[in-house]
């Protein structure tokens, strides 16, 4: 399994190359090659692991040297963060980096003797995460090459620091691989901090005032989570004498106090990473970053790190106080974020809120901690990773062509910018329409929460389900609606289209092969974790649902084709008989032409961010504080 250290280290090498090469053309070529290498290595890892029996594999027992390197890197990281904090006069944030790093360093250098465990752990879940990071991540890098070219072409006021952008992207990929493959909590903590800092650096890429402000918000929230994680690790290490994640989860599921405290603190950290309320604002602010980083970090992979940790913890969360906290916060975020999404018209904000909302559902699934919910959560994770990455990239490309990312401006996009609109349509359908994505997960989560008598979660899912449909359908309607607005010139580059195309194919493939995927991959994944797997949905029904989803995908294409051949029997739309003849204006009382604007409902007064955000944050903060305090109090 020599490919594992390669996977972790190669992106770091690529990052250095990105930083050193200042000629765009050469750097782009190197980026393509590196992305391809990462993708190939990921697939190789997966295949090798499958051939080897697809079991749980533990590797690398003696890693003194690597431990030291990681410790050194952690200290360097701390220095960088501290320097940046002082540079932008936010010195107080640096404490959140200094304190946990020094704590971890102390534990490692002067702490008590630890029981040694393996450092790398491979099972279905970590390989799945590797596949998501490797394939989607590399595709986004390919997309980013084209996108950033166009981005700097239009945003001439922003200094061109692409070398830096790509460096951070690769840095992030390496950290993500390290994160999902590590079994040791100290390693996990290090990679965790690296992803936080990468996100911070990318949000602040433009160096505009708003970007800097948002980047520091993201930084302190994520570092707060990191601090909690470090505190949990140190506490657990001192009490139990080891730093192995699996052992911690196992002790947690046996309700051992020390492990439970560590699990609660780790779960808290995961909530910050997954942008659950009250930590959702950082993800909203992160939308100022260039689109590839939104697609990669803030929807497809990095926020999934939080979910990944929660899935790992889920056996220990089941029935515990921390589990109730996680499922409550997740369910609540699912509902509240989908309310807020209704009031957004900026496409990226809708995507951000729906990401938070979906992460909430996954979090709730993990919090319930039953095999069915993990099954549902994993599927939601797969669908969400592909479709959100697709949608973010598509919105980015659309913005480059349309010069707007307002959903209202997308009226009739299916006829004005057909390629991108069809892809967007598929992405949205894959995200929420029956029978996949959200639906299956909602279904399984609802069933499981009834089974576990989790009343409050039933409420959240029932109401959240209705609101989710509302904002997605609105958007879908905009794309398909007729409009007399002019056709837009599609300036999407080939490399962007490659990524979008592969994503689309992946999306459709995952939907169509859903039952197969469930049987050969997700069921074993669940039984890895719980030692049992249950059939969540009867296979016959599954196949029926596959037919349905294919039908859904066919709709926009057929509608478009039919429209092409339409000439006869047209009539004007009804406007009380004063339609001026183009369906987009009417004759006013003064006899002149008045433009007609058809807009969606946004219910801003009821569901606006300003109205809902603060109360929601207050509620979730209270719940988190109370449950964490109770867990810690119970242990002392």
């Amino acid at each position: 399994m020599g490919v594992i250290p390669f996977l972790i280290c190669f992106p770091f090498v690529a990052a250095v190359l990105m930083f050193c090469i200042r000629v765009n053309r050469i750097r782009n070529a190197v980026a393509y090659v590196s992305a391809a290498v990462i993708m190939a290595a990921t697939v190789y890892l997966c295949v090798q692991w499958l051939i080897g029996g697809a079991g749980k594999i533990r590797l690398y027992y003696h890693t003194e040297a690597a431990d030291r390197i990681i410790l050194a890197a952690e200290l360097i990281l701390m220095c960088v963060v501290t320097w940046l904090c002082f540079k932008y006069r936010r010195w107080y944030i640096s404490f959140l980096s200094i304190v946990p790093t020094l704590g971890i360093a102390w534990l490692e250098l002067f702490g008590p003797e630890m029981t040694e465990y393996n450092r790398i752990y491979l099972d279905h879940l970590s390989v799945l995460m590797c596949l998501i990071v490797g394939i989607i991540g590399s595709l986004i890098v390919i997309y980013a090459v084209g996108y950033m070219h166009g981005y700097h072409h239009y945003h001439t006021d922003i200094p061109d620091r692409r070398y830096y952008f790509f460096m951070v992207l690769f840095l992030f990929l390496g950290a993500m691989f390290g994160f999902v493959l590590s079994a040791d909590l100290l390693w996990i903590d290090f990679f965790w901090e690296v992803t936080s800092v990468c996100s911070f650096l990318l949000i602040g890429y433009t160096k505009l005032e708003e970007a800097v402000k948002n980047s520091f918000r993201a930084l302190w929230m994520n570092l707060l989570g990191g601090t909690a994680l470090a505190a949990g690790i140190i506490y657990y290490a001192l009490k139990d004498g080891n730093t192995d994640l699996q052992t911690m989860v196992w002790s947690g599921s046996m309700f051992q106090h020390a492990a439970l405290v560590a699990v609660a603190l780790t779960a808290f950290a995961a909530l910050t990473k997954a942008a659950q309320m009250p930590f959702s604002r950082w993800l909203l602010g992160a939308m100022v970053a260039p689109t590839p980083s939104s697609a990669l970090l803030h929807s497809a992979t990095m926020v999934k790190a939080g979910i990944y940790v929660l899935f790992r913890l889920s056996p220990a969360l089941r029935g515990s106080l921390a589990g109730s906290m996680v499922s409550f916060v997740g369910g609540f975020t699912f509902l509240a974020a989908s309310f807020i999404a209704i009031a957004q018209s900026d496409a990226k904000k809708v995507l951000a809120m729906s990401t938070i909302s979906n992460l909430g559902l996954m979090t709730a699934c993990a919090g319930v901690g039953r095999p069915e919910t993990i099954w549902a959560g994993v599927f939601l994770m797969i669908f969400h990773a592909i479709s959100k990455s697709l949608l973010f990239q598509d919105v980015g490309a659309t913005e480059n062509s349309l010069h707007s990312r307002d959903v209202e401006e997308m009226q009739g996009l299916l006829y004005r910018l057909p390629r991108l609109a069809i892809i967007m349509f598929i992405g949205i359908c894959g995200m929420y329409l029956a029978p996949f994505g959200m639906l299956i997960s909602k279904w399984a989560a609802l069933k499981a929460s009834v089974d576990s008598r989790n009343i409050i979660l039933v409420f959240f899912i029932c109401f959240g389900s209705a609101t989710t449909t509302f904002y997605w359908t609105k958007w879908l309607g905009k794309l398909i609606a007729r409009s007399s607005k002019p056709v837009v010139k599609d300036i999407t580059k080939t490399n962007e289209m490659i990524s979008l195309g592969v994503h689309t194919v992946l999306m459709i493939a995952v939907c169509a092969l859903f039952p197969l995927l469930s049987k050969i991959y997700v069921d074993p994944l669940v039984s890895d974790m719980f030692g049992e797997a249950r059939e969540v949905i009867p296979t016959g029904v599954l196949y029926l649902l596959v037919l349905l989803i294919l039908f859904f995908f066919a709709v926009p294409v057929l509608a478009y084709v039919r429209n092409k051949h339409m000439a006869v029997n047209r009539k004007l739309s009804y406007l009380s008989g004063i339609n001026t003849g183009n369906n987009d204006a009417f004759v006013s009382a003064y006899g002149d032409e008045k433009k007609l604007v058809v807009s969606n409902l946004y219910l801003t007064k009821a569901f606006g961010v300003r109205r809902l955000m603060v109360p929601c944050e207050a509620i979730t903060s209270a719940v988190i504080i109370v449950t964490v305090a109770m867990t810690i109090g119970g242990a002392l």
Partner: protein
Amino acid sequence: MTTAVRVIFVVLYVLLAPLIGALLAGIDRKISARMQRRIGPPVLQPLYDVIKLLKKQVIAVDRSQGFLIVSYMILTVITGCLFFAGVDVLMVFFILGTSSVFLYLAAVVTGSAMSSMGAQRELVQDMAIEPALLFSAVGFYLATGSFEVGSIIGGPVSAIVKMPGFFAAFLFVLTIKMRKSPFDTAQGTHAHQELVKGITTEMGAKNLAYFEITEWYETVLMMAVVAIYIINSHPASIIAAIVVILLVYFLEILIDNTCARLKWKDMLVLSWTVTLISAGVNLILLMVI
């Protein structure tokens, strides 16, 4: 239920549902007329209307509308078939929500102001309906231990005994689903319209006929949901179910004729409140006990 019985049920649904739906709609119009001391149209009037619509010239603002409406119809019928085949009730409700997306798309594809506004209201209506429907499914699961229609109606006592609150919430949203006043903001059958014909403004001829036929299928499906609240393993309960369906239908007509239209915002708040209180309390009782 054996496979043969399931197939028979599905075939019966596909063939008979439009007839029963049309008949119910006709009776609705007749009773409404009598409530207003009019003679009213013949009972088969809805059928006459649809036959006429099918024969009219097809003109459209946007041709893809026809395709979307047919999709809507097919999906709704499939949903009904799933229900009568005894598939998971929860899944049926989820897919029903999806099929209404096609109605929305069929309305907004025209880009027309009136039908787009109607469609937006339709979405709000769907949002108002969905929680109560999902709660109903959850209630069935708690009361009978299964989401499957076969097991729900196979118990010794009727589901309604344990879930009166769910039933009340369901009846409330049924008024919205059946487009009855005071909740007919998206599309209403009365002469006093706010938005011309709301979501159906740009639908004419065949398209409107398909819409009407889908409404019939949907009515029958909703009435079947009412029925599974009542039916138990005792054969006499089927008669009781039919009586309850007729009573429910009469109640809807009565509400339709005695209430003034509400604003859609009030509708949303009201239906969610009712769902939350009525179904919510019932849910808590069922879960705790």
